[in-house]
């Protein structure tokens, strides 16, 4: 695999008040890979993700997407970057006053510039890919939490972005659906060579989809392990990492 760096994070330090969440974190994401970010609850995964997509401004360090520094861009310049990325938020973030179909149609109508018939067809296709066919007229408040996650995923990938950011895509899903989401992620990655950054805790899905992982830790406020999960599981020098992958607190 050619190793083109699509996201570069350098010396990212994040503080909320006096509280340092991330301390000088640096890593790269390579084009076409599936990178899984993991770590205990509250260790700053969502925070890291929000900084990678330029939603936060108060920090030091730099983030570049596709060789474009996003850290010194203002809002209007960010729109170029936003066209390249799709984001699934931890809380799904569907627009509550619009139906599921309208939520997915929103980016399509704004940017795809296609006839109405084609857009309808695309909506159905996207819904089918997350197993939500027939729910396009439901409001977000009328579907379950796991369904919201899937609808959010469909919206995130509506425009086939080059980079997908998924914050816990399989949280709240049953094992079968969650495995289907894994398959979908692999399929998107394979067919469209989409770069995918995922936050997840599901061991099964980590081993299945991850090309590479980075593991964050609360006490170190940064990365404690980076690499192939299968290798780290057996050979990591860090006890925390082996504990996590072997699901064994006593290791």
């Amino acid at each position, binding site marked *: 695999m050619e190793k083109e760096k699509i996201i570069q994070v350098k010396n990212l330090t994040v503080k909320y008040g006096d509280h340092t969440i991330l301390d000088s974190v640096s890593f790269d994401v390579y084009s076409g890979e599936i990178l899984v970010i993991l770590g205990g609850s509250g260790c700053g995964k969502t925070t890291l993700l929000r900084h990678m997509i330029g939603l936060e401004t108060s920090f030091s360090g730099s983030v570049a997407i596709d060789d474009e520094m996003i850290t010194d861009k203002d809002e209007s310049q960010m729109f170029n970057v936003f066209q390249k990325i799709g984001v699934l938020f931890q809380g799904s973030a569907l*627009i*509550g*006053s619009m139906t599921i179909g309208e939520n997915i149609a929103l980016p399509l109508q704004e940017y*795809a*510039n*296609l*006839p*109405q*018939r*084609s857009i*309808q*067809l*695309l*909506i*159905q*296709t*996207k819904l*089918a*890919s997350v197993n939500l066919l027939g729910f396009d*007229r439901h*409001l*977000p*408040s009328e579907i379950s939490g796991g369904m919201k996650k899937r609808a959010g995923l469909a919206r995130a990938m509506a*425009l*086939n972005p080059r980079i997908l950011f998924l914050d816990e895509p399989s949280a709240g899903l049953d094992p079968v659906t969650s495995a289907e989401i894994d398959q979908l992620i692999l399929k998107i990655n394979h*067919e*469209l060579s989409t770069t995918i950054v995922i936050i997840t805790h599901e061991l099964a899905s980590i081993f299945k989809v991850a090309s590479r992982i980075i593991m964050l830790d609360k006490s170190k406020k940064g990365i404690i392990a980076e690499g192939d999960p299968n290798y780290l599981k057996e050979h990591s020098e860090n006890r925390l990492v082996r504990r996590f992958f072997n699901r064994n607190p006593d290791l």
Partner: protein
Amino acid sequence: MTDTSRFSPPTRQWLKTGEGNFTLRLAGRLDVNTASAALKTIVPELKIRSPLYLAINIEDIHFFDDFGAVVLFELKKQTEDQKGTAEIIGVHKSTQSILDRITFEPDSNETKQTPRSDNFPERLGEATFKFCSNLGYLLSFFGAVLVAVCHVFRQPKRLRLNDMIFQMEKTGVNALPIVGMISFLLGLIMAFMSSIQLKQFGANIYVASLVALAMISELGPIMTAIIVSGRSGSAFAAEIATMKVSEEIDALFTMGFDPVIFLTIPRLFAAIIVVPILTVLSNLFAITGGLVIGVTMLNLTTGSYISQSVEAITLFEILWGLFKSIVFAVLIAWTGCLRGFQARGGASAVGNAATSAVVSSIFLIILFDSVFAVIRSYWW
């Protein structure tokens, strides 16, 4: 891979293979970035040729996704609209799997909107039914609040005193500047306007009684109630509605709290305590406003203005005004909390709750005020 190649539409090659038979060879990218441009160029070319049979060869498409598939689908449809048939050929195995996902018909037009009856009587009936059930909910919520009040009186421990004090601060203390300013200006304006008329009769001194009387028995309670309803009634509704849509109320319920006692009672009691106090202060501010006009423009002395004001008002008027303001306070807290609890759905439900809380509380305030006015005029 440069960005320009990423956005350039596929190259096209039309071949005439017979009378009305065409083959369209596409090469390059047919994906999310090029779909729109591809359609825009191909559709006119298709319209000119209007083929009876069209073969779309996508052998040389090296980048394809579901947007591309939709473009092919649209071309097929367009051909069929012109009474032709179209076929897609040269499909790779990987492309086929993408095409397979788009085999169903979009249910575009027929079920677009939920059927809404245009029949006037039917809609009138629906609206009436909705109004009545709304009224029913209004009353049953009032009942629930009364029950909650009884509970709290029996077990005063269940009253969340800290919450109540917090609400009193938010509803009362923080409203004082705006209530004070509006009342002061109102007094000023009233005195000024009435003085224009009263001056002609040399009855300047009656400006004082007019301002005092109008404020204490009518305007004070009404103005204060409307301001509080706009400030706090909407806040009650928005806060409770947010809790409702994010399942916080259900959480309270499952923890064994009665949401009505937990949320409504502190707000209700806070309103009942602070609205009359605000009303009294509002009256004082208005009288001060009138006094400023009286002293500066009407040659009245401060002493005479005040003594005239005091003479005009009776204890009954004061109590009547206070009684009304207590009723208004109940209306504000009641509708505010009610609309909050009624909210259902997402963020827009919160906005609707706040709006309808203010609208219905102001409506009820005016309605009750009119009823009081009628009662009073028949009572005398």
